[in-house]
């Protein structure tokens, strides 16, 4: 049978870091791939934490436990030099167009392909996220006010806030609801209004403050195990490439539409951080950029791209 090689069925496991809320998008992606490949490439998708803890997604994809993953670089910024920049440094980009420009014209994508290549995975595509703002129990419009409350934040943002003596703690998303409802923390920086509504946090806090720190507020990635990729015939590689791009697009639109709806439904009361504070944060952010640049030659190249971008858009003096 001369067609045997082409008829081979590839069965892949893919895990995302998000829960059931995004299940439909990933099921559709698997369906697209299966149909386009006539059933030769079949991807079973798993939700956050189902097979491996989310912070182990890169490790699992690199070693072949998973063939594919949808993850967030900040989870492994301790082992991939570029990951913290990739997932979003404060004020590195302020619009979707800027982010796309950085990735595909300035060369961020190539740097990421190189960085992830060292971990046995192929960097397929970024997946641009939505907003990244503060949810709090009391209305907050200034950094001084933030100093008086305890805020949950991940390390990128925490480092900047600590410069302004704003106390931060790290908690996993599973603990948000109980910590907020018992007042053990009174603010969270995690995502968009839509993310907060999904977690039913409107039952614990009403105030949503736009920080204007970063838009898109986070950038996810779609990774494939390099050996699994090399095994695929050319046509399946092309099919996967196309479907991955569509997945990233669908995921982004889903987040943006959801956030719009949550805000127009008035689930939260919206506030903005005062302009003088945004300026202070911008200055502090540049210190953070420079610290990141020192981590490796590759990081320095990436930060130069970001400075170049900000300069050409008039954001940098």
């Amino acid at each position, binding site marked *: 049978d001369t067609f045997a090689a082409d008829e081979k069925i590839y069965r892949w496991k893919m895990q995302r870091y998000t829960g059931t809320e995004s299940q439909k998008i990933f099921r559709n992606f698997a369906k697209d791939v299966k149909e386009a490949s006539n059933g030769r490439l079949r991807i079973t998708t798993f939700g956050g934490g189902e097979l491996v803890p989310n912070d182990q997604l890169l490790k699992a994809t690199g070693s072949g*436990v998973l063939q594919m993953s949808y993850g967030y670089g900040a989870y492994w910024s301790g082992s991939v030099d570029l990951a913290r920049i990739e997932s979003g440094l404060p004020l590195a980009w302020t619009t979707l167009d800027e982010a796309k420009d950085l990735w595909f014209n300035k060369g961020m994508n190539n740097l990421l392909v190189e960085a992830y290549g060292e971990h046995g995975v192929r960097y397929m595509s970024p997946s641009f996220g939505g907003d990244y703002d503060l949810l709090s129990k009391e209305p907050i419009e200034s950094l001084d006010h933030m100093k008086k409350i305890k805020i949950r934040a991940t390390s990128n943002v925490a480092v900047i806030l600590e410069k302004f003596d704003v106390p931060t703690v790290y908690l996993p998303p599973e603990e948000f609801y*109980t910590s907020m409802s018992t007042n*053990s923390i009174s603010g969270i920086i995690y995502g968009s209004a839509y993310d907060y509504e999904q977690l039913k946090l409107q039952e614990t806090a009403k105030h949503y403050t736009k920080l204007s720190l970063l838009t898109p507020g986070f950038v996810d990635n779609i990774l494939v195990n390099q050996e699994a990729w090399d095994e695929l015939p050319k046509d399946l590689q092309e099919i996967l490439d196309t479907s991955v791009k569509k997945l990233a697009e669908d995921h982004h639109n889903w987040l943006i539409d959801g956030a719009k709806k949550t805000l127009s439904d008035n689930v939260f009361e919206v506030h903005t951080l005062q302009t003088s504070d945004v300026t202070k944060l911008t200055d502090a952010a540049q210190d953070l950029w420079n610290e990141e640049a020192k981590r490796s030659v590759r990081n320095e190249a990436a930060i130069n791209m970001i400075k170049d971008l900000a300069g050409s858009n008039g954001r940098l003096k």
Partner: protein
Amino acid sequence: MIDMDPLLVTAIMFGSMLFLMIIGTPLAWALLIVGTGSAINLWGWDSLDMVVISTFGVMNTFILVALPMFIFMGLVLQRSGITDDLFGMVYKVMGGVKGGLGAGTILICAVIAAMAGVTAAATVSLGLIALPAMLKRGYDKRLVTGAIMAGGALGFLIPPSITMILYAFLTRESIGKLFAAGVMPGLMLAAIYIIYILVVCRVKPSLGPAIAEEERVDWRGKIASLRSLILPGIIITTVLVFTMKGVTSPTEASVIGAVGAVLSAAVNRTLSLQVLRGALQETARIMGMLMWIMIGAVIFSKIYIGLGAGQIIAESIIDGDLSPNLVLLMIILTYFLLGMFLDDSAILFITVPLFVPIINELGYDPVWFGIVFILAMQTAYLTPPFGYNLFYMRSVAPPEIRTVDIYHSVTPFILLQMVGLALVVFFPQIALWLPQVLFN
């Protein structure tokens, strides 16, 4: 990778587990062996990293820190004689009633359940505290072990509850509503257990004898004996208040409990280096056992989930084109069967993403279904061969309680849990009343 019928995979994995358990392989290693073996056979060598990733995952889970804390607390209270005084008190007050000490134990279980989010807390600490106290007073070993294991499982249902937090996170339901929905069914089950214990002891007094006529004390003596309630009462109140006021997270509250136990022992003038050292060492031995069982269970479960077998079994129910009530019945039956072999988080991950949309479509309330799920998982903690509470009990029970006794002792309580489950299924208001009052 080999393509295999999911039912065959299920049979092989569960079958080899049973085989190893029968030949006396320690449970933790049996889970590790079957998990590793299945991964190699079905996914190839590359997938072996799964085993170490899972191991590190369990080590790296903050909420589990509560486990050694609660165990240490239980041991310090026991070794310093505080809990023996407490049970002596319960015995004096309720001693005239046959089975009164058993009923008191269930109440204490409910209180510990309200302090801790994990079932191990109540099961292990009461296994250390209540078990010897009741055996000493002539209670039947099977009644006592069964009551403690069933009472310990209330830790799931009475908030806070780790399993509810995971369920809520996966389904995007409100944790607050789930917590509220668990309170009434939890109290109801506690009441059912108490009634059962009082009834069987009345029918057959040798199971839980009343105090001898001449040893009974008058009301003056009863009130005086309430003194032994003070120290444990202060610990429990502090932990609850700290958690509810947000001074500490539930996990941190377990540390407050541990410190409270040491301080109580000091106040009681029974704290010594020997007590402290003994409690620390026993905590380490128990945790060494629990930790590796958890690691083994995670490895086994994750690999089973990854094979997609559970998913296919669950999907076959959905595709069966059954009436809503029959679907519900099938779901509950599935939970019972899976519960015999898998741990609760595995069942959660396998079934909840599939079942909850169906439940919504059929018009059932997802918060109510969450409680049905938790009730089913409580049963899973008690059903052989794989039931966490059975292992917790085995690890703390004295040798004269044989494994057979432990397995036998749960039977009536599993039946009682089914009664409780049926009540919640037929009268959803038992679960839904409190959240409706609090949130609307």
